[in-house]
């Protein structure tokens, strides 16, 4: 109704003051249209909420829950019971000796969820809830930085390959092929062994993990960017840019790359999810973040050695798994939503 009224007013204006009709018709910029389509999809809003929630939980959470630190042990003490059973035979009669040893330990390990530990403590006596937050920091930061580096490297190398073509293209693409052929996990195992041998601080392993993830993942982005640029550079507006005498740098980074951005953003948001999975896998395999530092994958790692925890202490490892699922799902929902929103065929 409101719109109709405006339209009528516009018509009246034309008659009186000769203002053309289309002056009052504002079409949206491509970016605004994409944003609107993105928020029209419920799934992408769910994804956004999931991801933002995790971010707040990880980065702001510790400020509101300062009771325990990441590497702070609960020293409240606990009684540890060890049962043992010995069977021996004397004069043909079998005796069984059952013995329970009670030990007072300093650390309050494997505590059940309680008021002071919302999710209990783990095998060492660290607060799981707090470690989830700090683990989230590491997992999210590592994947964000890795995706950021991958995009930069991919855009620069893919852009150069696509724009210049010929020998340059060939060289860069063959490097990509080689990197894609490399098996990721075995190489990581080797690197990890070397790192263990060379005694590098657990803190720096995180950065090395990021660099490694970037190194094996950039070819995907580079291929995507190259393919887009190959088709875009034949467009007439690129010939026009050439005729205008723009520099090569300007043509690539001001005219071509912005037009690759839609596809790039989609692939970035989707690969954020897979980076979190990568990071979790590596930590689970004890190749990434090492204790005492927490990462979601590292927190699940415990079940690979301790079947007791796998069966009886679900509160130790399930929350970390849930966080990983939420993060990956959230990033994938966002990626899908962006892809639909950026699809030029879905003009609505």
């Amino acid at each position, binding site marked *: 109704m409101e719109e109709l009224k405006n339209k009528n007013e516009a018509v009246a204006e034309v008659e009186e003051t000769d203002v*053309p009709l289309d*002056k009052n018709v504002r*079409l949206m*910029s*491509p970016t605004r249209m994409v944003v609107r389509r993105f928020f029209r999809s419920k799934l992408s809003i769910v994804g956004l909420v999931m991801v933002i929630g995790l971010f707040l939980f990880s980065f702001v959470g510790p400020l509101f829950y300062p009771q325990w630190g990441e590497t702070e042990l609960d020293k409240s003490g606990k009684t540890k019971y060890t049962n043992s059973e010995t069977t021996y035979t004397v004069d043909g009669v079998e005796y069984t000796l059952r013995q329970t040893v009670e030990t007072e330990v300093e650390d309050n390990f494997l505590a059940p969820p309680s008021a002071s530990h919302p999710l209990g403590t783990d095998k060492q006596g660290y607060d799981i809830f707090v470690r989830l937050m700090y683990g989230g920091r590491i997992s999210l930061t590592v994947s964000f930085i890795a995706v950021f580096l991958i995009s930069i490297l991919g855009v620069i190398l893919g852009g150069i390959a696509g724009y210049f073509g010929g020998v340059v293209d060939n060289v860069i693409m063959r490097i990509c092929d080689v990197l894609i052929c490399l098996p990721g996990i075995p190489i990581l195992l080797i690197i990890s062994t070397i790192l263990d041998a060379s005694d590098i601080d657990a803190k720096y392993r995180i950065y090395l993990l990021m660099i490694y993830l970037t190194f094996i993942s950039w070819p995907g982005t580079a291929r995507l960017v190259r393919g887009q640029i190959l088709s875009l550079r034949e*467009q*007439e*507006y690129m*010939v*026009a*840019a*050439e*005729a*205008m*005498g*723009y*520099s090569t740098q*300007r043509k690539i980074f001001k*005219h071509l790359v*912005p*037009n690759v951005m839609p596809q790039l953003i989609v692939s970035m948001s989707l690969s954020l999810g897979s980076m979190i999975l990568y990071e979790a896998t590596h930590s689970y395999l004890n190749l990434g973040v090492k204790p005492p530092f927490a990462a979601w994958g590292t927190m699940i790692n415990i079940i690979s050695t301790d079947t007791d925890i796998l069966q009886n202490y679900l509160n130790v490892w399930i929350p970390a798994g849930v966080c990983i699922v939420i993060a990956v799902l959230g990033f994938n929902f966002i990626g899908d939503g962006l892809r639909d929103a950026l699809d030029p065929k879905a003009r609505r």
Partner: protein
Amino acid sequence: MAEEKVTTEFDPEVILEVQNLRKTFPLKKTITGKVTKELVAVDGVSFKLKAGETLGIVGESGCGKTTLGRAILKLHEPTGGRIIFEGRDITDLKSKEMREIRKKMQIIFQDPYSSLPPRSTVGGILSEPVEVHNIVPKSEIKDYVLDLMDKCGLRDYYYERYPHEFSGGQRQRICIARALSVNPKLVICDEPVSALDVSIQAQIINLLKKLQNEMGLTYVFISHDLSVVKYISDKIGVMYLGSMVEFGTKEDIFSMPLHPYTQALFSAIPHPDPDVKMNRIILKGDIPSPANPPKGCRFHTRCPHAMEICSQEAPEYKDYGNGHCAACHLLNK
């Protein structure tokens, strides 16, 4: 540095001189990169164009008109021949050196849809070249662009809009404004109206004429529409299969076409009066492939007056008075 290459008989009125321009595209290459088969898109085209004039280039589809236009701007690197712009030989300039010259020669494309970048506003499209070439100080760019938009018949509130919001005619006006934003001397109009409908064509042609008068532009107007070319041009060049078969002033060419191809082409112009009997010269066959052009005169396969010599020797491109040049054996008899 490049001043050495100035031709000896430099006429300050001549803004563009093309000598024997040739452009080939490789079709087949051996592994070592040696070209074994090539497509000759433009072959030995020469002409001179004075400042303020309009040269109309006509010819069938695929005869090399567009390639010629782009080769003049060095958007395609010419294979042979010379291009002399404002007395300076620009044929061998590197792309960096060309950038400075680019602001003096511009191009308007055939397709107004694909020649505008989709993600910038009209204001962005028009102010970028002004900024890059430092045409006016930074603070005056917006006023300059608005003034230019007004000249090209674009309303000032289009400044914030995106190309997809416009119709073909308005888009072509944006393209014209972009080409003129750097104050060029020479504008190559590569079939600027053939993608538009007839009523809009007239508007755009009139706009081009008006701008030519105001800014003293020189046009190379490429088109296959003879009536448009007749309306806008001072000189006309007729192309067939990559080479110029006839060149002269509009009056000469229309009143006395020398080459049989030109005669056939002009006989096809429709007449508004249905009672006028048209003596159409119907050419047989199709235009031969530029990858495999016929020997001798290129036109002899379709020429109604073909003689024996035509299939053996290429005719010389000669001046038959008043700068009216043609290449045909018939004229030497």
